[in-house]
Structure formats: structure tokens, C-alpha cells
């Protein structure tokens, strides 16, 4: 057997090894990227709000509204959520600002007495029970505790719903690591439970699951 032949063969075997390892390494990185970043990005379908609304304008110094001025309760303590357009019409019976969105809102909804089909970011699954009254009035929580930063938003971001489960990203969580990616996320079971644990409330499943 020729010695140089053997050496050459060994050398080429060495470069093959390196190439194989490199491909393997980048393959792993690529798959992780795909699975952890690309896939979660595409699994959620964005749904834009029908009308834009600026919380910062309404809650800011100019107008000076409080959260409860619009988001209130009925006599049984049930949270009424987003107010109907009749409430808006109190000020916006005709266009009072300069924005195109407002004009669209007045023309298409107020003048036609139509309700807006808001896309709800955090509508919980059917089996979840949540009481705003209990948390706010008995628990003495501020709105900002859970909806931190919402009053400062100038625009309504598109809601993102999972293409598989249909649940909003705000409910199912956006990352695999337990870190909420935007301030207003954190409406998953673990978020509720974490807060309750922190405050020393021990409860059973039926307290929140109906």
C-alpha cells in the first residue's frame, strides 16, 4: 500500500468530518430558529381592528377620562366591557377632531347607529370565569395592574389568533419562555395563578373554571 495515498485519504477524511459537523451544527441552529421563532410567528393570524382608537388621547390630559368612565359594571357587578357607540356619540355626534379614523368612525358607525365589532384581545376560553368586580372592588386592584400601558397606547395593534386553537396570543402566550412579550399579555392561567400565589390566595379549580 502506498503511504502517501493513505495520508491523502486521511486528510480528505478530515475535511469531510469538519464539513459534516458544520452542516450538522447549522442544521440544528436552523431547526431551532424555525421552530422557536418562525413557526410561532406564522401560527398566529393577525386580525386588524375595524376602527382605530387612541387610549392615550382619551385618557390623556386633553380629555382626561378615567378607565371606569367607559368600562363600567351593571347593577349585578358584571363587567360591561367595551361601551357601545351610543356612549361615544355623547361627544362624537359629529366629527370633532382631525383624524381620518374619527371621521370614518362617525360616518360609518355613529351616523348609521351601528355597533363596532371590536376584536377582543383577551377573550378567555369558554370555561374560564373571571370577575372584574371581585378583583377591582374587593381585591382593590388598579386597572393598570393587569392592563399596564394600555392607557398609553395610541393605536390598537392587530389581535393575533392561533390558527390552530383560535385563541388569542394574549391568552395562550407568545413565547415558550415564560416572558410576556408585550405589557398587556399575561392573561394565561399561569399569570392568574402566579398573582394569586403572590398575594397568598389559595383557591380551587372551580373558582376560575366553570
Amino acid at each position, binding site marked *: 500500500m502506498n503511504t502517501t495515498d493513505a495520508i491523502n485519504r486521511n486528510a480528505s477524511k478530515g475535511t469531510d468530518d469538519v464539513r459534516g459537523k458544520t452542516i450538522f451544527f447549522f442544521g440544528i441552529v436552523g431547526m431551532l430558529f424555525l421552530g422557536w421563532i418562525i413557526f410561532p410567528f406564522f401560527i398566529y393570524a393577525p386580525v386588524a381592528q375595524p376602527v382605530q382608537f387612541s387610549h392615550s388621547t382619551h385618557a390623556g390630559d386633553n380629555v382626561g377620562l378615567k378607565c371606569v368612565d367607559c368600562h363600567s*359594571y351593571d*347593577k*349585578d*357587578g*358584571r363587567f360591561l366591557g367595551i361601551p357601545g357607540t351610543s356612549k361615544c356619540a355623547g361627544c362624537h355626534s359629529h366629527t370633532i377632531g382631525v383624524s381620518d379614523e374619527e371621521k370614518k368612525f362617525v360616518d360609518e358607525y355613529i351616523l348609521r347607529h351601528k355597533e363596532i365589532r371590536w376584536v377582543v384581545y383577551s377573550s378567555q376560553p*369558554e*370555561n374560564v*370565569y373571571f*370577575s372584574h*368586580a*371581585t378583583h377591582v*372592588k*374587593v*381585591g382593590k386592584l388598579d386597572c393598570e395592574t393587569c392592563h399596564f400601558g394600555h392607557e398609553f397606547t395610541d393605536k390598537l395593534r392587530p389581535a393575533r389568533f392561533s390558527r390552530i386553537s383560535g385563541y388569542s396570543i394574549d391568552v395562550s402566550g407568545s413565547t415558550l419562555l415564560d416572558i410576556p412579550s408585550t405589557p398587556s399579555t399575561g392573561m394565561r392561567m399561569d399569570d392568574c395563578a402566579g398573582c394569586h400565589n403572590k398575594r*397568598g*390566595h*389559595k*383557591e*380551587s*379549580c*372551580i*373558582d376560575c*373554571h*366553570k
Partner: protein
Amino acid sequence: MTNGNQVKSLTGKKHNFGMVIDVDRCTGCGACMIACAVENNVPPGPVDATDRTGITLMRVYKADNGMDFPDNESVFFPVSCQQCEHHPPCVSVCPQNAVEVDPATGIVGQIPVRCLGCRYCMAACPYHARYFNWWDPVWPEGMERSLNPDVSLRMRGVVEKCNFCFHRLQAAREKAAAEGRDEIKEGEYIPACVESCPTSAMTFGDLLDEGSEVYRLAQSNGSFRILERLGTGPKIYYFSEREWVRNIAEKDPASALKRGATTD
């Protein structure tokens, strides 16, 4: 999770809800069964459902004194989940913690979304008070609009049971919270079956509250519980002035056989 010492109810004080059913007043009309089904979004069974496969979270049994006419007397026992207090047979058997006793109210809660449908709890319950969803829930066209929004629907393949209309407690708590109260008032929360009973045979309330009617009745002479000997501490009490009725609760089932009762 169910360690009583650590409990701090979300809305103040600890309860132990229970019920007393005066079987002398029960006419066996079944209103409680209907009210329960309507309140809790129990779907109407399909045509091939039987009394053994349908869902009746509250079920009325008939018993008699075994005598021939004219001495024959009968009695009705509305039996729902007995909300056992001490080691409920269904809680410890559930492999995935879908059943637990709510320490703040003493109510045995079952979470259908956690349920795998293994039905071990059904086999464990001596009262046969647990029901399995053998079919997909289907309502006649249009009837689904009458569903109660406070109760979630159960899918096919899970077990469900009575939870003393826990959603009514939630609603009462919410109302109290809106009014700035920590605590619900007596009578603000009663389950649908109690509400519907036309002869007022059922009394519901907090067994820890010594001033309550339910406490008085539960402690009274004629009160008894079914299968108390098993030591599970059921929280549904029955009441009867008649001794033979009170004896039925603990009677050996085999004694009925000796009388020649049917075994089908």
C-alpha cells in the same frame, strides 16, 4: 392544594355549604331534575339514550317500605352529588386532579376540561352521582340560545357532576363585590334545584352558620344521611319524621332482595 389551614377565601369567611331535603314533603315531581338540567346546560339526550346513559345531575329515586297494599308507603330520594366532606371517594381516585374539594366552600368541584374521561370517579362514587357525556352535546335548533352563559358546555367524553350551582355563588359574590361587600348574604346563593322545589322540601345554606335554617334542620332529630357508615361525610342531609324512611339510608341492599324485590 386542599390544605384547610392555608385557606383564605377570596371573599372573606369560610363556608361549608350543605342541604337538607325533607323527604316527607318531596312529591317526586322531578322539578329539581329539570331545573338542574336547564340551569347547568345539560343537553337533551339523543333518542337512544336510556336512563342509564342520560345525564341527570340530580336524580330522584323511589323507595318503599316493602309492605303490600294497603300498608304500602313510598318515599322519594332526590340524590345529587352528596358533596362528601371527609375523603370524598371521587377526589383521591382522579389521576389528574380534575376533582377537588374547594376548601373555602366545601363544594366538591369537577373541572371537565381537565377530565380525561377515565370514569374511575364514577366507579368510586357510591351514590352514582357522576355522569359521563356519552354523546356530543346537541341542542334542538334554536334552543342553544337559551343556554346559561355562566356554565360552560361539556364536551363528549368527560365526566360531570353537581357542584351546587357554583356559578350562582360566583354571581352572588360578584354582586356583593360590586356593592362593596366582602361577603354574600344568606339567601343570595341557592342552587337551582332548591329554588325550583314546589313544596320547599329543600333547604340550602351554610352548615357552619349556627343560626341558619339548614344548620337547625341538619341537627334536628329526624335528619339522616345516606350511606353515612362509609365515613365520607356527605353534606346533603335528608329529613323524615318516619322511622322506616330514616332506616332506609343505612339498610343493607341485600335486605331488599330478601323481600323479593326485582333485581333487574
